[in-house]
């Protein structure tokens, strides 16, 4: 592909626009993510950060804007068909705030569902790979249990293994720790850190500022549907230029 010394971004987003009725949630969002890097999206509620993330795999279909992951490009203004959106979606693994595991399937069944039912890969291979992934998220011994038997943190880690199982190029996390009891947050963030150190390209919507400081290569602060400020964490988080960013960080670091 490119011989650009900086490398070409694995993900690039240009001019995302999205309205929900009269609510203009995205007003032209641009974003570039280098392969193997971690991007953290932060911002107040309603700022559009989750909508941006969901537009990256077409769970949300914006009115306009271009999303490219690897070789797959979707121009939302051109009203892409379902097949094209599915191709884009297949490029990334998604982890939801509410995990959305399939409750009637075993942990192993959740992880093998995509590769087995959709990608039609051989069952033995899929199962072996799923067990490796479960071991990676520290749940090798839970393969035969069902989601309701697990703690919130374990459920979230199964969700991560399920997303990894489709062999995506990019991992997306939508507030993966926001619904968890505080003492369970760490085990999930540990898995994210470990994925980052293995070279996974990740985009994470989160309020965990310390995680962003330690792991992120770039932090984007969204407000009112635009990227107000972006850069390395030591700049955006430690020395924010924008008044809005400073306010936001003060509020979340010291809510009282």
């Amino acid at each position, binding site marked *: 592909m490119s011989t650009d010394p900086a490398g070409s971004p694995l993900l690039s987003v240009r001019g995302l626009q999205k309205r929900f009725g009269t609510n203009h949630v995205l007003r032209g969002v641009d974003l570039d993510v280098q392969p193997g890097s971690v991007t953290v999206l932060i911002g107040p509620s309603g700022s559009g950060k989750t909508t941006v993330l969901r537009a990256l*795999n077409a*769970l949300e279909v914006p009115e306009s804007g271009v999303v490219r992951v690897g070789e797959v490009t979707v121009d939302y203004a051109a009203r892409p068909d379902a097949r094209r959106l*599915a191709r884009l*979606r*297949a490029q*990334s*693994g*998604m982890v*939801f705030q*509410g995990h*959305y*595991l*399939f*409750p*009637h399937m075993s942990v192993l069944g959740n992880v093998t*569902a*995509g590769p087995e*039912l*959709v*990608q039609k890969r051989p069952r033995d291979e899929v199962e072996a790979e799923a067990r490796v992934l479960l071991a990676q998220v520290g749940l090798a011994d839970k393969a035969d249990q*069902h*989601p*309701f038997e697990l703690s919130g943190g374990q459920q979230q880690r199964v969700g991560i293994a*399920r*997303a990894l*199982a*489709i062999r995506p190029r990019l991992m997306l996390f939508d507030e993966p720790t926001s619904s968890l009891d505080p003492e369970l947050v760490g085990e999930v963030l540990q898995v994210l850190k470990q994925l980052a150190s293995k070279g996974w390209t990740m985009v994470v919507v989160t309020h965990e500022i310390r995680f962003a400081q330690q792991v992120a290569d770039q932090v984007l602060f969204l407000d009112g549907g635009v990227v107000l400020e972006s850069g390395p964490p030591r700049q955006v988080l430690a020395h924010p230029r924008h008044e809005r960013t400073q306010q936001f960080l003060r509020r979340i670091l010291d809510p009282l």
Partner: protein
Amino acid sequence: MPAGTGELVGDAAGPLLQGLVLGTIPLTAISFVLGVVLALLLALMRLSGVRALAVIARTYVSLVRGTPLLLQLFIIFYGLPSLGVTIDPFPSAVIAFTLNVGGYASEVVRAAILAVPRGQWEAASTVGMGYTTTLRRVVLPQATRVAVPPLSNTLISLVKDTSLASTILVTELLRKAQELAAPTFEFFTLYTVAAGYYWVVCLVLSFSQARLERRFDRYVAA
């Protein structure tokens, strides 16, 4: 109590059981299975987001629910012949009950599908599943759990509604009782035994419902 009641009941028990096993039960089972298939189809039409399909399904449900079941039976058995379509009693009854169950149960199925969180559809799509796979592997297994109690209601009603088929000459339990009672005038005894049979069938179904519900609740946290 008239003399020989015990004997009468003993004599009638066999033929009545025959009416139940050869008439009521197959009529109920076939109509219910086909009716639920029709209901699923109607529910998916309403949820499709395609206006024409939704309108067809809504109109159908409205007609089925807005007219008496007995009249629906009569239209199929006594009415259609004047249009040149003559159908035997048993298939006529199957058609009428299937169409009827389809209409009522479609609302149950639709509600059950809507009860599955949208996140399940989304999660399925992020691992690559399309509409049909998502429906079969993710949504319907979860919707079934929600649908079991109301569908059991439909089934139990149907068991008793099939007695209406006696009016179009289907030899099911009630008609068998009528036939046996007519020459002897032992209406009270025979109808009471018939009622007992219906009740036993419904009891068995209620127990099965409870067992089924427990099975489906296995994977749901308390």
